[in-house]
C-alpha cells in the first residue's frame, strides 16, 4: 500500500472517477486554471478540459443550484465549496432543494450530487471561516453527510459518494490535507453510512470523526502509557449514522467520551450520547462525556483559537473523568 496524503487521496478519487465515468465533472471557485484553493484539482483542467472542470463565479448559490440541475438531468457533478462556511450562502439549495427533490417528486428523479466542502478551524482564518457546522447539515433527512478522518477512507468514501444516487455533503478538514496514511492500491469503495472501530481498547470508548480522530488517537497513545486502553470508533458518516460499532464497543467498555470539533450544544456528541442512553442504558457505568469546541465564535488569535478547539489534553482529561 502506498503512503499518501489526504490531498492526494481525494485528488486520486476524483481523477479516477472522472476517467471512469464521463458524466462526472467538477465545478467551483478556482478549481480549474488555478487548480483549487487547496490544490486538490491541480492538473485536472489541462487533462479533462474546461467542459469538465468548470471555474464558477464567486456565488455559492449558483454553484450548488447549477450542480443540482446537472444532477437532475443525468450528470454527476462534484461541486466544490472553498469552505463549508460558504455553504450558508447556498443553504436553500442544499437543504431545501437537494435534500428534498427525490422525496417530494415521488422518486421520479435521482440526485447524484456531491458537494465537497472544506471545514474545520485551526488555521487562523477567523470566526466566519473556521466553523464546523457538520451537525447542522446532518440534521436534514435526504442528505448524506460524511467526513472521513484518514486518506484511505477519504478516497474510498469520495468514490462511493460520486457513485451514490443521493446528494452527499463530503466534508474535508482543512488541516488534514497533509496527513499521510496507507491507501490501498487500485479501485476500491468505502461504503457511506458505516462507522468503524479504528483502534481497539477495553477501558473506554472514544467516539469521534474527521480531524478529531487524529486528536483522539494522540490522546489514546498517551493514555496507553498509563495503562488505559481506549477504543476509538470513527463515525465517518454523520448521516446515515451507524451506531452499530459504537454500541458494540460501549457494551464492552461501559464508558464513553465523544469528541467533536463543532460546538457542544445540539451537536454530534449530543446525538451519539442520546442514542447510547436510549439503546444501551443498562450498560452505562458512568455519565458520557463530550469534548467539543468552546461555545464562542472561534478566535483569530492563535493561542486563543487553540484554547477554544478541542486538544489532546482535553480528551485525556475527559477519559479520566469517566473512568
Amino acid at each position, binding site marked *: 500500500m502506498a503512503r499518501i496524503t489526504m490531498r492526494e487521496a481525494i485528488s486520486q478519487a476524483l481523477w479516477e472517477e472522472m476517467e471512469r465515468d464521463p458524466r462526472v465533472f467538477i465545478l467551483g471557485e478556482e478549481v480549474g486554471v488555478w487548480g483549487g484553493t487547496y490544490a486538490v484539482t491541480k492538473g485536472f483542467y489541462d487533462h479533462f478540459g474546461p467542459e469538465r472542470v468548470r471555474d464558477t463565479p464567486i456565488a455559492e448559490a449558483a454553484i450548488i443550484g447549477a450542480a443540482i440541475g446537472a444532477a437532475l438531468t443525468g450528470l454527476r457533478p462534484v461541486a466544490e465549496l472553498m469552505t463549508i462556511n460558504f455553504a450558508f450562502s447556498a443553504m436553500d439549495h442544499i437543504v431545501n432543494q437537494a435534500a428534498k427533490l427525490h422525496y417530494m417528486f415521488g422518486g421520479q428523479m435521482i440526485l447524484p450530487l456531491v458537494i465537497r466542502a472544506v471545514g474545520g478551524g485551526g488555521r487562523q482564518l477567523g470566526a466566519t471561516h473556521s466553523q464546523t457546522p457538520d451537525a447542522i447539515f446532518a440534521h436534514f433527512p435526504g442528505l448524506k453527510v460524511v467526513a472521513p478522518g484518514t486518506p484511505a477512507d477519504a478516497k474510498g468514501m469520495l468514490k462511493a459518494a460520486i457513485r451514490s444516487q443521493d446528494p452527499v455533503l463530503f466534508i474535508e478538514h482543512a488541516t488534514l490535507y497533509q496527513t499521510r496514511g496507507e491507501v490501498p492500491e487500485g479501485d476500491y469503495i468505502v461504503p457511506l453510512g458505516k462507522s468503524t472501530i479504528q483502534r481497539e481498547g477495553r477501558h473506554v470508548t472514544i467516539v469521534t470523526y474527521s480531524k478529531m480522530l487524529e486528536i483522539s488517537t494522540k490522546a489514546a497513545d498517551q493514555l496507553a502509557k498509563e495503562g488505559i486502553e481506549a477504543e476509538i470508533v470513527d463515525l465517518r458518516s454523520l448521516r446515515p449514522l451507524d451506531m452499530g460499532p459504537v454500541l458494540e464497543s460501549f457494551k464492552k467498555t*461501559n464508558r464513553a467520551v465523544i469528541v467533536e470539533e463543532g460546538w457542544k450544544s445540539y451537536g454530534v456528541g449530543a446525538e451519539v450520547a442520546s442514542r447510547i442512553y436510549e439503546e444501551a*442504558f*443498562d*450498560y*452505562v*457505568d*458512568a455519565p458520557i462525556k463530550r469534548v467539543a469546541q468552546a461555545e464562542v465564535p472561534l478566535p483569530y488569535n492563535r493561542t486563543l483559537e487553540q484554547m477554544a478547539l478541542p486538544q489532546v489534553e482535553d480528551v485525556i482529561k475527559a477519559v479520566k473523568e469517566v473512568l
Partner: protein
Amino acid sequence: MAEIIAMPKLGFDMAEGTLVRWVVGEGEAIEKGQVLAEIETDKATVEVESSAAGVVYRHLVKAGDIVPVGTPIAVIAAPGEKVEDIPAVAGGEEAQPSAAQTEQPAEQPIPASQETAAILEDDGRTKASPLARRMAQEYGINLKQVQGSGPGGRVVKRDIEKALKTAPVAAAPEIETPPAPIAAPTTSPLPAVVPAAAAEDQRVAVDKLRAIIGRRMVESKTQIPHFYLTSEVDMAAVMELRKQFNSQLPEEQKLSVNDFIIKAAALALRQYPNLNASLQENEIIRHAHRNIGVAVALENGLMTIVCKDADYKSLGLISQEVKEMVARARAGKVRPEDIEGSTFSISNLGMFEVEHFVAIINPPEAAILAVGSVKEVPVVENGVVKAGLRMKMTLSADHRITDGAEAARFMQALKNYLEKPALILL
C-alpha cells in the same frame, strides 16, 4: 433493632396497594406474625403481618393512601428504642434505619431472609450507575452494602465485580439461609441448592411483533371456526427427486422439502379455490393469485413471508425467493412486499422433528397447512412390512368458507402432487 414493613407485593402484576386500615396503632406492642394493617389491591383486601416483634414505632402512610409496592409503610422498633433514620413517606433521605445497616458487613450480599429489606434499600436513592444497578439486580446484591468507588461514592461495575468475588466466602458460614445466589454465576454454573432469593421472575416487555402475533392469533382462534384434517404422505418420490436435484446444485441453491410443498400446495389450490379465499362480510373472495405464506421463526416471534404466484414458479425460483426473504426476515430487513398478500399459509416444523401439529389460521386466509417431519417408518404394503418415508400434514380450515369434504379433496390433491412429484415439474 428497628424493622421496616413495606407494602407487600401480592401477585405478579400488583404495582401499588391502598392502606385501608391500621390494625395496630403507633406505640402499641406487636408480635411477629400479628396483623398490622389491612391493605387493598385491585383484586382483594389482605392483611399485612408484622415481620418483627416490638412496638409500632411509626406509621409511614395514612389510612386511605395508595403507595407503590415496596414503599415503607411502618417502622417496628424494640420497646424503648429510639429510631433516628425513619424513611420519609414519599422519597425521603434515607430508606433504612441505621440499626439494620450495622447488622450486615459491607460488601456482603443480602441473605434470602432479608428480602424485604433489599427492596427497601435499593429504592433508587443509592447512587449507582445503570449498569451496576442492573448487575446488582441480576446477582441479587444489595446496592446499599456495596462501597461505591465512583465519583461521589457512586456504585459502578467494578464495585459489583469486587462484591461478587468476595461473596462466596461471606455466604459460606450461613447455615439457616440458602447460599447467596451470587455464588452461582462466579463459582459454579450448577448450584447444589436452588438460589431462592435471587430466583426472580423475568419480566419481558411485549414488543411490537409479539403484540401483533398475540392480537391476530386471538382474533383468529376466537372468530374463525377451525376444523382440522390430517393426512400422511409418502415422501419417497420427493426425497429421491430432491436428492437428484441437490446432487447437481451448488450449496446455496439446494432445494428444501418445503419448496416442494409450497409448489404442490399452490397447484392444489388452483383446483380448490375455496381454500385460497377470504371471507369479507357476505362475500367469499376467491383470490386470483396463489400467494403462499411461509411461517419463519424469528428470535422473538414469527413472521410470514410470501411466495407470490407460487403455482407459476419453478421449484428453483421458489427456493431462491424463499431463501432470500427468510434471510431478510431474520436480519430484520424484511421489505413490505415480502410479507404482504399471502392467500394460504404453510407452517413447517419438520426440521425440529415434530411429527404432527395443528396451526392457527392466519386471517384473512381460509386455511393453513401444518407440516411435520419426513420420517422413516415401517409401512405395510400388500401385507408386507417395509421401510417407508412418511410425512404428516394437518390442514386447519375456516368452516365458514369451506367444509370437510372439500378440504379433504384438497388434501388428496396435495398428497397426489407430493407422491407423484413429476406433476409439479410440468
